[in-house]
């Protein structure tokens, strides 16, 4: 698209008029074909059937905007001689910016954490925002959990939601049949999910890449369909309701005497429970992050990353790849189990409908968009994805369209995810990031 001729002396803007005119004509034709049919005509329900409304004026404005936009692109962006960047910046400013962004990057995590801690007490925080942030944090936790399997160990898992479902159903069923409390069920749900992670791990050990993805996808569906059809045990499509709410270490959140508000001498408010749920999921998510970061520094975490890089090399170094893969599956699944039981206690009602493939895809999208293996990236991606879903709730029909577009754009601009640097898990003197262009796959073999 850019001009191929380069000016020998100094870089100057260069426009090839016939080329531009030709391009603009093609643009007009395409825009007319697309918007002429979609915007110019609109069906309205009229008396006695469907009427057709004609909106040539709006269609004309849209087409004009597209053409003018393309013309501006030609004038300001594509007229550059090749080899110069779109925005010229003096080297000093560039290096200054790099320094600032490095500082911002360093402070980003603690700032986010601080913000997360005070968020429920901020004046503008209402019930809706709090609910939304609980949802976002749930996905952050799921993203961090899946990051172990996909980002670190490099095992593409398309059925991650199965473990989420197992965690949710374990809590709901244990509470229903045995009357276990949330705090008892949380570790049990994690253990059960990890156990199922190992069960799934065994048959798929020989598989890699696409084949692994298909089997995990099938596993996710199997779990959902079993939950759907095992009516006597799981309630089938009716789901399970009346799941007990969590208590504040034994103090229930209700109006009664000996409740949370009464015990602390506060006026009863339903927001207390939501705030508690918020801090609960924040703690669980931070636990996931903490454990993952610690594991990365341990031999097992390095083995996961080495497995992602090169399985044959791992074997030649005496690593038992079977156990490395199983631990990744199990630990990833365990965190999904925790998140699942949190989900159950928050909702109070679960049904197989909450655990469809689209959930797995969403979690995977969060991990991939965030940059595989990056913890901060997962946070940004879940805020963008889940928060974005909420913002565009009005435009429900176009929501998926907008997200599809956003994803395509991100994959064009940042093909390795938002945060594509990898911080070495160990270093001798100073921490040095491995920059994005250095982590492209398929090199170095």
């Amino acid at each position: 698209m850019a001009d191929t001729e380069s000016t020998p002396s100094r870089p100057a803007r260069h426009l090839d008029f016939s080329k531009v005119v030709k391009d603009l004509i093609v643009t007009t034709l395409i825009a007319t074909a697309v918007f002429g049919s979609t915007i110019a005509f609109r069906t309205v329900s009229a008396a006695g059937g469907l009427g057709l409304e004609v909106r040539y004026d709006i269609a004309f404005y849209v087409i004009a905007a597209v053409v003018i936009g393309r013309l501006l692109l030609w004038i300001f962006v594509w007229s550059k001689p090749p080899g110069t960047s779109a925005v010229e910046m003096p080297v000093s400013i560039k290096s200054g910016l790099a320094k600032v962004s490095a500082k911002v990057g360093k402070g980003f995590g603690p700032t986010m954490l601080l913000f997360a801690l005070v968020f429920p007490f901020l004046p503008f925080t209402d019930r809706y925002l709090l609910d939304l942030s609980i949802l976002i944090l749930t996905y952050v936790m799921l993203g961090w959990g899946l990051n172990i399997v996909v980002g670190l160990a490099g095992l593409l898992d398309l059925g991650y939601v199965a473990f989420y479902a197992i965690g949710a159903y374990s809590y709901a069923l244990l509470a229903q049949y045995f009357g276990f409390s949330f705090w008892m069920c949380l570790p049990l749900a994690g253990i059960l999910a990890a156990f199922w992670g190992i069960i799934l791990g065994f048959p798929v050990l020989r598989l890699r890449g696409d084949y692994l993805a298909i089997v995990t996808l099938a596993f996710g569906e199997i779990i959902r369909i079993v939950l759907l059809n095992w009516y006597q045990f799981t309630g089938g499509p009716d789901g399970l309701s009346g799941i007990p709410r969590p208590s504040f270490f034994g103090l229930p959140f209700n109006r009664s005497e000996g409740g949370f508000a009464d015990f602390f001498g506060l006026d009863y408010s339903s927001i207390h429970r939501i705030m508690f749920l918020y801090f609960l999921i924040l703690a669980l998510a931070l636990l996931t992050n903490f454990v993952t970061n610690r594991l990365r520094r341990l031999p097992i975490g390095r083995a996961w990353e080495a497995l992602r890089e090169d399985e044959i090399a791992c074997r030649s170094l005496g690593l038992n790849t079977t156990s490395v893969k199983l631990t990744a599956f199990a630990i990833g699944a365990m965190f999904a189990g925790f998140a699942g039981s949190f989900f159950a206690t928050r909702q109070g009602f679960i049904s197989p409908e909450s655990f469809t493939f689209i959930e797995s895809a969403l979690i995977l999208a969060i991990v991939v968009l965030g940059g595989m293996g990056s913890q901060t990236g997962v946070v940004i991606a879940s805020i963008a994805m889940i928060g974005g879903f909420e913002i565009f709730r009005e435009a429900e029909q176009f929501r998926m369209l907008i997200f599809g577009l956003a994803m395509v754009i991100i994959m064009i601009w940042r093909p390795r995810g938002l945060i594509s640097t990898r911080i070495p898990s160990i270093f001798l003197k100073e921490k040095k990031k491995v920059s994005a262009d250095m982590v492209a796959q398929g090199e170095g073999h």
Partner: protein
Amino acid sequence: MSEQPLLEVKDVETFYGKIQALKGVTMEVNSGEIVTLIGANGAGKSTLMMTICGNPRAAAGQIIFDGQDITNLPTHEITRMNIALSPEGRRIFPRMTVYENLIMGATTSDPAYFDKDLAHAFELFPRLKERKDQRGGTLSGGEQQMLAIARALMARPRLLLLDEPSLGLAPLVVKQIFEAIKMLNEQDGLTVFLVEQNAYHALKLANRGYVMVNGTVTLSGTGKELLASEEVRAAYLEGGAH
């Protein structure tokens, strides 16, 4: 030289599906030796190397390391017996730093020796020390090969298996690598089994050599004998002596 060879391969046959890659290979590596296996493309050199490591497994025959039958052990247990493999094509971990790569090499060894081994590896290949915080994938081919060997050495091996260390490297770098192998053998008494296509350099370096053709060993002898042999010269050394 000990009475018993460190590594003994007896009548090993290996198949890829129905295709027989090794048709009864017998060879041995004595303690403290450098032994090389040369042969053309597809002769089965790498297959023999891989079979020693248990993947693919030998269909018939026996592989004995230090008096113990390792024919049917899983790969990770074989490599835990102080056999280190520097695989063909180097296979370093490209996104991990040089330092991390070396740590991965030390997975099976006693952590007490780590610092000493690391210093030793850096002494052998000073280039790696300069680049210790650099990502493996950004190293040049020669540096990657150095890293692959250094990583294998971190496992404190008694037997080092090298699969085509000269693959795709400039002649000058090949010379450096081979000098390092020689040093390892002479100073540390490390036993090396070297699979090579670069027959001239390999035979010059090795105490003994085997020549493999179509899955069988056709010739064997000391490095010098093989270098002087008419057959070897005709088949592998024409134009190879650079």
